[in-house]
């Protein structure tokens, strides 16, 4: 891509500061540096929050071990081994140890949920489920929201518009936990439309993952209700955003000109209005892709869906700090990767942004 080589021609001196300035001037270098900085902030913040706050989990863990019959000495070495830190070392040294392990890709070991098992393995076993369930719903809700939002903007101030916008604002404010419980209660218990077994777990017992019809059917059957909850709780936001974006695009001169040129409505909607109005939403889509894990924590609890959210819930209940820390880190990295993706996409979709970056 031509974007990556764009540097300012003014500072072409060959001095060290000149070269450094040139590197810093590169948009992508700066972006990547910023992202790495954010990951570092999150890691550092969680490290110190966990160790500095009252109710220090390390101490609590040692006390737990002592309760189970170990001497203090044994408990301390055991805790230090499981958390892979030297507990007597000064905080700064512990911190550098921890960071050193992180750079090697070692997130530490779980100490309650699956004692001694690497956190990274536990998380990556769960991640596909969350990515599948929340990701699919996100796409459905995005497409549906774009369509409805455009419809509302085209029919501005009609009863349909009022209905759609009020409905969106309403469903946007209902906590998704409540939506989930209401669905389980009515569909599964009171009306008995959906068997309860399909609303607990992510697969029927005995079904093996693979490219078989049985697996795929079972997958989607278990996905249906939680998927509906995700779509329901995010649809309103997409619709309102698309409505306001389309409304402002409809006022643009080039749309008026396109109309004056006698282009068909279909052509105007797809090539002129739709394409421009969806620009800001595409960025938002990429950003919400990153929040996939965060959005799933409560819903997965209710549906016992075997994803990262459920894992975090379990880790919180059992106070498994390395797992909590690991999930937070992995989630932050997904958020950052997807915002980077959003930046890329935006530049690719909107040439004006690309040119601006070149000038920077």
């Amino acid at each position, binding site marked *: 891509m031509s974007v990556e080589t764009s540097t300012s021609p003014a500072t072409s001196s060959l001095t060290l500061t000149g070269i450094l300035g040139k590197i810093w001037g590169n948009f992508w270098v700066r972006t990547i540096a910023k992202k790495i900085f954010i990951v570092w902030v999150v890691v550092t913040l969680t490290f110190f929050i966990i160790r500095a706050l*009252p109710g220090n989990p390390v101490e609590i863990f040692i006390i737990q071990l002592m309760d189970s019959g170990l001497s203090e000495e044994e408990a301390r070495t055991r805790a230090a081994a499981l958390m892979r830190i030297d507990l007597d070392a000064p905080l700064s040294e512990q911190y550098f140890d921890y960071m050193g392990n992180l750079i090697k890709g070692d997130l530490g070991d779980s100490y309650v949920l699956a004692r001694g098992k690497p956190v990274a393995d536990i998380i990556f076993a769960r991640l596909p489920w969350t990515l599948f369930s929340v990701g699919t719903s996100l796409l459905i809700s995005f497409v549906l929201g774009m369509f409805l939002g455009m419809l509302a903007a085209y029919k501005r101030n009609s009863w349909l518009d009022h209905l759609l916008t009020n409905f969106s604002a309403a469903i946007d*404010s*209902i906590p998704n936990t*409540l939506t989930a419980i209401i669905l389980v209660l009515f569909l599964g218990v009171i009306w008995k439309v959906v068997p309860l077994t399909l609303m607990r777990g992510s697969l029927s017992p005995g079904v093996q993952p693979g490219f078989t019809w049985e697996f795929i059917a079972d997958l989607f059957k278990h996905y249906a209700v939680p998927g509906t909850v995700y779509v329901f709780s995010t649809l309103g936001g997409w619709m309102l955003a698309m409505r306001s974006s389309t409304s402002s695009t409809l006022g643009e001169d080039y749309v008026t000109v396109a109309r004056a040129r006698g282009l068909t409505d279909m052509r105007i909607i797809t090539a002129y209005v739709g394409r421009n109005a969806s620009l800001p939403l595409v960025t938002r889509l990429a950003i919400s892709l990153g*929040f996939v894990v965060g959005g799933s924590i*409560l819903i997965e609890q209710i549906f016992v869906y075997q994803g990262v959210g459920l894992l975090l819930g379990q880790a*919180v209940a059992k106070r498994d700090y390395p797992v909590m820390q690991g999930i*937070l880190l992995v*989630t932050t990295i997904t958020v950052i990767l997807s915002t980077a993706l959003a930046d890329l996409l935006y530049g690719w979709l909107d040439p004006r942004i690309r040119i601006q970056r070149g000038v920077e």
Partner: protein
Amino acid sequence: MTTFGKSLKSFGVEIIKTLKLIARNKVGLFGMIMVLAITLISFVGPLVVPPETRAHPELINKPPSREHPFGTDFQGRDNLTMVIHGGKDVLLVAFLAGVLTTFVAVTVGAVSAFFGGAVDSFLMTITDIWLTIPRFLLLVVVATLVELENVWMLAVFLSVFGWPGLARQIRSQVLSLKKREYVEAAQLLDLGAGHIILREMLPNMMNYIMIALISAMTSAIYSQTGLVFLGVVPFGNNWGVMFSLAYAKNAIYNPNAAASLLAPMGAIILFQLSLVMFSRSLEEIFNPRLRAGV
């Protein structure tokens, strides 16, 4: 303090004008009446209705009846009484968190936009970092470490995690106000940053800030519900605790106990919807373009 008194007075005048406009919009009026009614029931109700202090083993998980319109819970307590007593904390946290969130967001947004330059890029970098971090997860993790035992602490925590999005919106509002003639005039007169922000800009943004306050309240209730459901904020009797306890006692699989879930959940949803209705019609009132249908 005279400056403050004057701005308070003009704020009062604003409110009366606003109330007159609200009365014109039926949906908004209904939303406002509902918000006021729920607030009244939650704060005055507990003084009138005696609390449920003990379990009634013979009345466990009864569906709604004449004596117990919302049924009874897993300890045989009357759900209606519990709902009346359980609103205070939820509303208080929502209100405090809403006010604190708005206050931080307005301060950061206004200072950032007004001073520009290095201050702006510093504050906005922090805001962006805070926006990028998966805040709800961080909130969950922090809430398990710190004992959030009272209303104030929960409100402070929710607002620490809730301000960045709003700060960005306020910043762009102030940026556009900064270009208005009266602000430029005030700057030429050298009236000082405090005066210009507090007396020239804020009164003109009051409408916007009120809507922001309401939406901060709804998101505070949203996160609060989630935290209570995860069991990381264990305090007192409130709607959130009611439904998560009922859920934990498997009320969801027992049609007779459905009322124990639906009563507190209904209360939360009703309050959220009332707030949304109220704020949507406020938006319509404050934004004349929406009213005129341009």
